[in-house]
């Protein structure tokens, strides 16, 4: 029993000491930094308006195929002309080229939203968000879009 107590104390002691050392180091470093650095202004997140441009351009993973950029441009022109059918056609073409692009799915959802097909819009936006992390800026944008398309 004595041996068990000793080993338990030793084990916990090791864990505690390593944690304390680490914490001290970090705090020290942080304190130094705070003394030399200027105080940072509080970060305010700007609300990005949800529209075709932001949905098309905010996702920063580059397109794997050059043709996708061309198709996206054409889809934008069709959208601006109000031709939703042609827009869907081009987005579908993009989707077939690369079926894991959240921006393509998001744009499809957005167009359905403009057509007042909210159920379909929600599904596409959710699908897009499934490829993004929670802290992703683009995910926040899509979440806004989801709220707006209800």
């Amino acid at each position: 029993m004595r041996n068990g107590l000793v080993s338990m104390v030793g084990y916990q002691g090791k864990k505690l000491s390593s944690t304390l050392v680490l914490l001290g180091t970090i705090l020290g470093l942080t304190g130094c930094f705070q003394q030399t650095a200027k105080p940072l202004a509080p970060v305010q997140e700007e609300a990005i308006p949800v529209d075709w441009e932001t949905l098309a351009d905010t996702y920063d993973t580059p397109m794997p195929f050059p043709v996708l950029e061309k198709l996206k441009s054409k889809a934008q022109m069709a959208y601006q002309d109000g031709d939703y059918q042609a827009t869907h056609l081009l987005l579908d073409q993009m989707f077939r080229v690369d079926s894991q692009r959240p921006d393509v799915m998001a744009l499809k959802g957005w167009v359905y939203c403009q057509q007042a097909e909210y159920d379909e819009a929600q599904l596409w936006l959710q699908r897009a968000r499934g490829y993004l992390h929670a802290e992703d800026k683009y995910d926040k944008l899509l979440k806004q879009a989801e709220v707006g398309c209800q």
Partner: protein
Amino acid sequence: MGSDSPKAGRSPRNTASKKSSSRSGQQKKPGASTRRKTLTGKSSTTKKTNATKKTNTVKNGSSVKKTPASEVIRAPVRRSTPAKSSTASTRKKKAASKRSTQASRRHTRPSAFKRLLKWFGYFTVTGFVALVIILIYLDARVTQTFEGKRWAIPAKVYARPLELFEGRPLKSQALVQELKQLGYEAVSYPKRPGQYSAYKGKFHIYSRPFLFWDGLQNEQLMTLQLGGNRIQSLSSSNEQDMVRLEPIRVGGIYPNHNEDRELISLDDAPELLLKGLIAVEDRQFYEHWGISVRGIARAMLANVKAGGLVQGGSTLTQQLVKNMYLNHERTLSRKAVEALMAVLLEVNYPKESILETYMNEIYLGQSGRRAIHGFGLGSQFYFQRNLPYLQTHEIALLVGIIKGPSYYNPHRFPERAKKRRDQVLDIWQEAGLIDQAQWLKAKSAALGVTKKAPYLNVEYPAYLDLVKRQLKADYREADLTSEGLRIFTSLDPFTQRQAEEQLSKEVKRLESRYKQKPGTFESASVITDAFSGDVLAVVGSRSPRFFGFNRALDARRPIGSLVKPVVFLTALSQPERYHLGSILEDERYEHLGKNGKLWVPQNYDRRSHGRVSLQDVLAHSYNQATVRLGMEIGVKNVVNTLNELGLVREVAPFPAVLLGAVSLTPYEVASLYQTIASGGYLMPLRAIRAVTTADGAELNRYGIKLNSALDRGSVYLIQRAMQRTVEQGSGRFAHQQLPQLKLAGKTGTTNDQRDSWFAGFSGDKVAVVWVGRDDNGVTPLTGSSGALKIWTSVMREIAVAPLMLNAPRDIESVAYDPEAGTLYDSQCGDLPTLPVRKDSLVAAEPCPDNRESDWADNIRSWFSDF
């Protein structure tokens, strides 16, 4: 003398005859006719005789009777004229007598010539009336068909166009097959549309123009470099980043008579064709009125000179009438009708109209069940090119074939076809339509018909069947078979061909391996795109060209263990209760049914396996544990999940459903697995992308749509479990063959091994394969030994992308105890990890004490909390 005075009641005829008899009795001349018929029809001879006798008796008697005084006073009787009477009745009698005379004259027989004339007159009038009626009828028939819609133009069904762009995954073999199927000619360097060259992965392709559903794409010359199964670079004369080859025509929806044609106008036809056709078939076309006596005579002379039939005597108009309205009987009556109708056609319509109709009507050959009509389609059928692109010798061949498309079939009888073509060229040269140089060049040219490759002009009946069924929701049968609609589908010809070939080959191999008679097994397959729901291929039979029973769409068979992913998905949708590592009891299970029968499911190996993790139960397809699990979560919930995955059919929630006592078609199974493969998004499987009119005006467009979604976290977990099934379980043959694809799937075997199934997916394709017997007989096949083999062969050819699963945000990877199924709230040393839904961590425990974590683990766990 005698009784000459008329008495009441006696007929004038009698009186007259009496008078004449008395006269004749006294002064009878030899030969004079004394017989007259009375009105009663009786001969008056007797009376005359009696009178005569009376007179004679009087005379012959010794005593002479004295003439009474009254008789003496009366005037003497004239011989031939009846006695005049001053009374009205006498006049009446005279008139009656006159009529009687006339009547007797009418009954006099006329001469033979007059009778002949009379009957001729009757016939002429009757014949004329009949002719008029016939002409009216024929005229109505001619105009009714000729005006408005003359033909029922079948709908044309196209495969998906092959889209070429930089970076696109594409095998060289697939591109070459596509080009061949489009009838592209392999040359050293393409100079005109429809040609290509290939050398060490570098392709030059001169594409043809085509009117797509979104507009016209002009012909263009492109250069692309293939490498590593991708298009590494692409440039085109139109400077487009994406170029589409024209889609392969994969079939049509035909009217009952199976005629097919590609309508052309006179403007579409080369001038040589118009003039050449007339020169060969009907030189007097612009001069006659439907029939040409000169033409007949000339043809006879030409045939006599040639010693055989080289020219016909029928005009183009007559030929048109024969093809459009009549049959091909060689009888005089049919010929007569044909002549009449030809004249009526000429009377009603201008020459140009008749010629244009002829060019679209003429029969030019057969392709399976499809009858090739018209030069527009004939050009494509024989030369894989549109009419304006044909050369002199090719046009000559088409014109020559008219005389006998079967007899001069260039595929089967090239020598005959060449001889006939040369005859046509000779006629053209004589007529001055081509000069000497052109004539020589054309005669020395080869026939030029597209070689009859096995994949050329091929139809895909099982896929067409699906297309028709999906179209019926929006179109009437009549519209589909008559309006010339253009239907653009998702069919991938390469995938379809590979599926057909592999299926056919592997089924034969299975029969051989298991010593079955050839033809014992049947098979079917459905392949879709994993994310869009496009149906890429449908194979309805091991003999795919056969328009028979479409097993892919119509063979409902029990799915067996294919249902297990649905059972486990239902369980994983309750994350507080179940995760992939949950321990299940694979022990004997008994269920007493409502009918009083005891149901005791058995494992395949007739053994129980004790405590097994959920994912291993699925991987090894243990029945007992599955049934226990299913009964815990509720059979109705499992049926609900089936519906959420896309099953429309009603399923009764019996416990046997948990082991696949549900009969579905391969298409329905594909729909269920499609939803799983896409990450839980239910979308309808679609074979059609767009429908346009014959002129290219859009009628319908079918975009990619989502219907609903299941919980992504649960679907992700079942995908992982199905991947494990292929890596370690009953589907491991596929993993051994294609480890790089990281495939996921499930085997299915039904009672007595009557059905062998495999359903699974890669990063881009979902495929379902069924093998069994049409008579539902027992087979030696399991899902692993049968369908899986075929499935793997198919995926080897068609799958390009590996399955890279994307964990949704509510999934965490944590340590767990495989023996106990316990989850820990973090990673614990070298304990195995498991993806779980966060909701499952409610019952998670801290890492066990004997699993020391070193300082690195502490830092990791600290940061993960931060």
